[in-house]
């Protein structure tokens, strides 16, 4: 059995100094902004302060809703699943297309308040090895509640944009161990990681492993 290496990660957030106050400005900046911004506003946002449930799962959609008050744009942007794109450039193109479509259908030019502009930021992700190894999935029952949210982010969210895309590290490990964990794999695949804080997500994952290994055994 291959050991599971627990890693951790932290983000350093870097301002680009670029801003948008309207939807068309957002589109214009998106055309040539650093690709790290696309990562940051889709994925990095999940490691930033938030409380429990979030309505929109990326910063572009959240801004359209809260600052532009353009709910159509917000809903269409929110439905983009970043894990479904092989690289950040194709994700960028999808964003631009969705915004262009919205701009084509409306004659309204909505402005955000001057103090509510969209600020483009990017992040540097630092990944480091905790040197902690798990040799059996049952060890995750104890290990998961002790993980930092950085570890949860790295293994359950960031993993989805690493090869093979769309699969978190826990699922990938279990799939490699044979059919006995199929039920747990199915449960993990049902967890949508974009709507709750990493603390709540950690509890949810711990609950699934506990249910499988502890409660099932009793």
């Amino acid at each position: 059995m291959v050991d599971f290496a627990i890693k951790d990660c932290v983000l350093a957030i870097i301002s680009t100094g670029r801003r948008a106050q309207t939807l068309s400005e957002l589109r214009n900046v998106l055309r040539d902004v650093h690709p790290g911004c696309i990562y940051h506003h889709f994925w990095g946002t999940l490691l930033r302060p938030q409380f429990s449930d979030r309505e929109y799962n990326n910063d572009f959609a959240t801004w359209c809703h809260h600052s532009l008050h353009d709910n159509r744009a917000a809903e269409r942007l929110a439905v983009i699943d970043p894990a479904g794109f092989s690289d950040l450039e194709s994700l960028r193109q999808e964003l631009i297309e969705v915004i262009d479509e919205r701009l084509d259908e409306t004659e309204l030019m909505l402005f955000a308040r001057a103090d509510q502009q969209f600020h483009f930021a990017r992040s540097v992700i630092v990944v480091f090895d905790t040197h902690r190894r798990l040799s059996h999935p049952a060890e995750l029952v104890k290990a998961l509640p002790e993980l930092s949210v950085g570890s949860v982010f790295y293994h359950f969210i960031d993993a989805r944009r690493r090869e093979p895309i769309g699969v978190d590290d826990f699922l990938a490990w279990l799939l490699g161990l044979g059919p006995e964990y199929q039920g747990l794999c199915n449960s993990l695949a049902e967890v949508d990681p974009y709507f709750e804080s990493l603390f709540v997500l950690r509890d949810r994952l711990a609950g699934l492993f506990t249910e499988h290994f502890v409660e099932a055994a009793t």
Partner: protein
Amino acid sequence: MTAEPAHSRLLKRYAEHAGQDAVEQLRQLADLLAGLKVVHVNSTLKGGGVAEILEKLVPLMQELGLDTSWKVIEGNDDFFACTKSFHNALQGKALRIPETLLRVYEDVNARNAERLRPVLEEADVVFIHDPQPALLLRHLPARRGKWIWRCHIDLSHPYRPVWNYLRQFLVSYDASVFSLDAFAQPMPHPVFLIPPSIDPLSEKNLPLDPETVHEVLAEFGIDPQRPLVIQVSRFDRFKDPLGVIQAYQLAKGFVPSLQLVLAGGGAVDDPEGEGVLSEVREAAEGDPDIHVLSSGHYSDRTINALQTAADIVLQKSLREGFGLTVTEAMWKGKPVIGGNTGGIRLQLLNHRTGFLVDTPEGAAMRIRYLLFERPRMGQIGQNARELVRQNFLITRHLREYLTLMVALTHGNEDRIELG
């Protein structure tokens, strides 16, 4: 049996508040930087937000194995007059600073550079806090480390002539750090964003026993049995104390037992503050349930007790920096009603951790709602405390400093994989 080393005690105490996982993460991250010589430089050892942060950050960095020191530059009255003008101008006040004061500023930096040369040239990472020591760098061409300018000021609308003067020196740094994106100015080097934090172990934030709280209430003639709302802020138009009184008066029509405390420092050196204070006194006149506390300095413990006693904390600012008084109140498990501006927006999430309002009427409505829905108030307070625990304690602040150091010392990649 050996005694526990003093150096591990502080981290243990923080683990009690921030969680063992957060402290463990700090240890792992610090391992990547072990032995690094880090120097912080600012302009004062005591007083002010920067010194308050460094008092804790420096020993924590030392505990984590970083060879960290804190140096303070020495200046004269003219130097501090000049840097006080910088401070005001960088926050938007149109101020012409005389050439003579600028020369003093430059000379003081040159002298301090000589004095601190050995330690600064040897350092691997140097954090220069705010504009006061910003010119040290130009006098130390043989420096070997990374130099970071940490700006604690809101630079969103600086007075341009003063900003341009300082900027010419700041562009040589390896990086800058601002508290919020909205406060930053474009620079030719990476501009990192690190929000400020509160210290759960400070006098301002440590839990108080009920007797202490009651003593403070008795001192100011506040009835502990009746609902209390409070705003802790200096008497400044941007803090909208008159709007707070208006909100209180609107809410009092529905909650006649309501009491209000407006607590702020003395305003003896601030002519505008004196004017605002007299308007506040006038608006409060005749209502014995409005307590305007403005006579001099109140201890951190007193302010802590007042916040602890309050049912609801207000920060109805019209313009605000990060709003650490909001964070402090949230840490005490209080629902906060805050102005929809600045860093307050990052902390208050409607119906979850508090309420954002744009008018006194909005504040009144939320006061009434919360006092009517008392169980909801408890829930929001709990959420607020948890949000602060996860995001706005000094341990998170430290983690981001460590991350920044790793990022700067490992090249310019977007993704750094170590170990």
